[in-house]
């Protein structure tokens, strides 16, 4: 029994890394633009397909194609920003969040349906030469592809944190997150900050998608499930450091997995839901307020 628990814990941590990575992009978009994009998971899904086709058509290893996928979906994010989300940023905070939520809700349906038409509803997994390799510690099995995913997630978080704290651009992002009016008065081109933050957010989602395609699977309908996990992580972490988000992701993955052992795997989502509702009721400011007064 304890073997099951330990193996589940490991699996939970591995998927938790993915939760964290997906949450990074969502937190960035929400923190800077104050826009809630529930179609984040669809961007993830498209990234996964991009990596899949890069692999099957051109033989590009999904880890290698990460920069490509990032740039490609970032550009798509730019398009989405210009056509849709930019209009929403003209609104005050309350209507902005509500309208972006509804807007992206429609986008979810559109992108999902397009994906079904273009890619069929089949599940796809990127099967590389090392896909079935695993690091074994005794009877404990750690699949290499999933470990790679966790590694990339950690690297991405550190990279993002570095950008935010050590670059001028990151300073502008943080200032805009805190108060866009004040940032504008300081000379920050807020429109440009919004655009790049959103594009990076889309790119991060796509990278998560390609890792998920490698270590798990992608299909047109996976979007909302991952968006939900990302939402939970963002609420858990509060809008703070990027490292905090990875930790919160690991926590969610672990909790979910262990709950699955106890309740039965099919009810894992309920465990995550309960955790979400509990955290949301205890610390809603962690989501919308800044961590400081």
């Amino acid at each position, binding site marked *: 029994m304890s073997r099951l628990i330990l193996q589940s814990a490991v699996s939970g941590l591995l998927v938790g890394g993915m939760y964290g990575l997906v949450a990074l992009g969502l937190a960035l978009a929400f923190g800077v633009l104050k826009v809630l994009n529930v179609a984040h998971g669809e961007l993830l899904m498209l990234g996964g397909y991009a990596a899949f086709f890069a692999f099957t058509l051109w033989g590009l290893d999904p880890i290698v194609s990460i920069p490509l996928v990032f740039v490609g979906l970032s550009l798509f994010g730019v398009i989405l920003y210009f056509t849709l989300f930019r209009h929403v940023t003209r609104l005050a905070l309350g209507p902005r969040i509500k309208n972006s939520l509804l807007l992206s809700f429609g986008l979810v349906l559109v992108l999902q349906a397009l994906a079904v038409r273009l890619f069929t509803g089949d599940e796809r997994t990127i099967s590389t030469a090392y896909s079935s390799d695993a690091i074994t510690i005794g009877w404990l099995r750690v699949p290499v592809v999933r470990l790679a995913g966790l590694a990339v997630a950690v690297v991405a978080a550190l990279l993002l944190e570095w950008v935010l704290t050590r670059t*001028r651009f990151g300073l502008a992002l943080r200032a805009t997150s*805190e108060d866009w*009016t*004040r940032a*504008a*008065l*300081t*000379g920050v081109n807020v*429109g440009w900050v919004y655009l790049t933050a959103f594009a990076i957010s889309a790119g991060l989602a796509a990278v998560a998608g390609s890792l998920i395609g490698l270590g798990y699977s992608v299909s047109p309908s996976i979007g909302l499930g991952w968006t939900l996990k990302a939402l939970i992580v963002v609420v858990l972490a509060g809008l703070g450091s990027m490292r905090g988000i990875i930790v919160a992701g690991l926590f969610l993955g672990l909790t979910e997995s262990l709950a699955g052992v106890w309740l039965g795997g099919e009810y894992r989502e309920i465990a995550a839901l309960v955790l979400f509702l509990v955290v949301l009721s205890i610390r809603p400011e962690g989501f919308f307020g*800044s961590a400081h007064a």
Partner: protein
Amino acid sequence: MLAVDGLEVAYGDLQVVWGISFEVPEDSIVAILGPNGAGKTTTLLALMGLLPVTGGTVTFGGDPLLGLQTHKVVERGVVMVPEERATFASLTVEENLELGAFTRRARSAVDETKSEVYEIFPFLAERPTQRAATLSGGERQMLAIGKALMARPRLLILDEPSLGLAPIVVENTFRVISTIREKGVAVLMVEQHVEKTLDLADHAYILEMGRIVADGPGSRLATDSRVRDAYLGL
């Protein structure tokens, strides 16, 4: 330097500013006084491009200023210190100052400007890594002005710089504003603190319900009976 002519500003259907005209000459301190709700802050926000303007013209150094995006207004040299929370609480003193020099023009002279700012506000040099949220009200106001100066303004706009500050801090602040004028930066300030402001300002305008009802050199207005009647504190 700054010439405002017939400015009209509206919030949706509600018109707040009804065609006001004023100017800020170089090397001068101009004050706009008036009660709450007169439209003072609205005017300033409109100048900075944060509110849509429904009529009138504004030129700065001869070039039109209206319709520019806020960051471009700052780039031109018009910098505003807003009324509340003018600093970024989550950032440190140093980060606030660095951010203040965000525009390209200011960036090229960051170090020089920073030492000038430290000269005016020595206490900022002592604690660069302190988070702005932990500063006192007066210190934060100083940081806010210092941050604005980092943008190398040619015109500094202050929205109620004395708000919420102890009298001695207000005196300090006003002394600093005078120093700023001596350094060749024009100042436009909006205030409720009538007496001290009229002492300081070269010229003042009284704004009431979105219209200018009086204007003149600070010393003359101080003795104007209309002003005295309207503001019992004089």
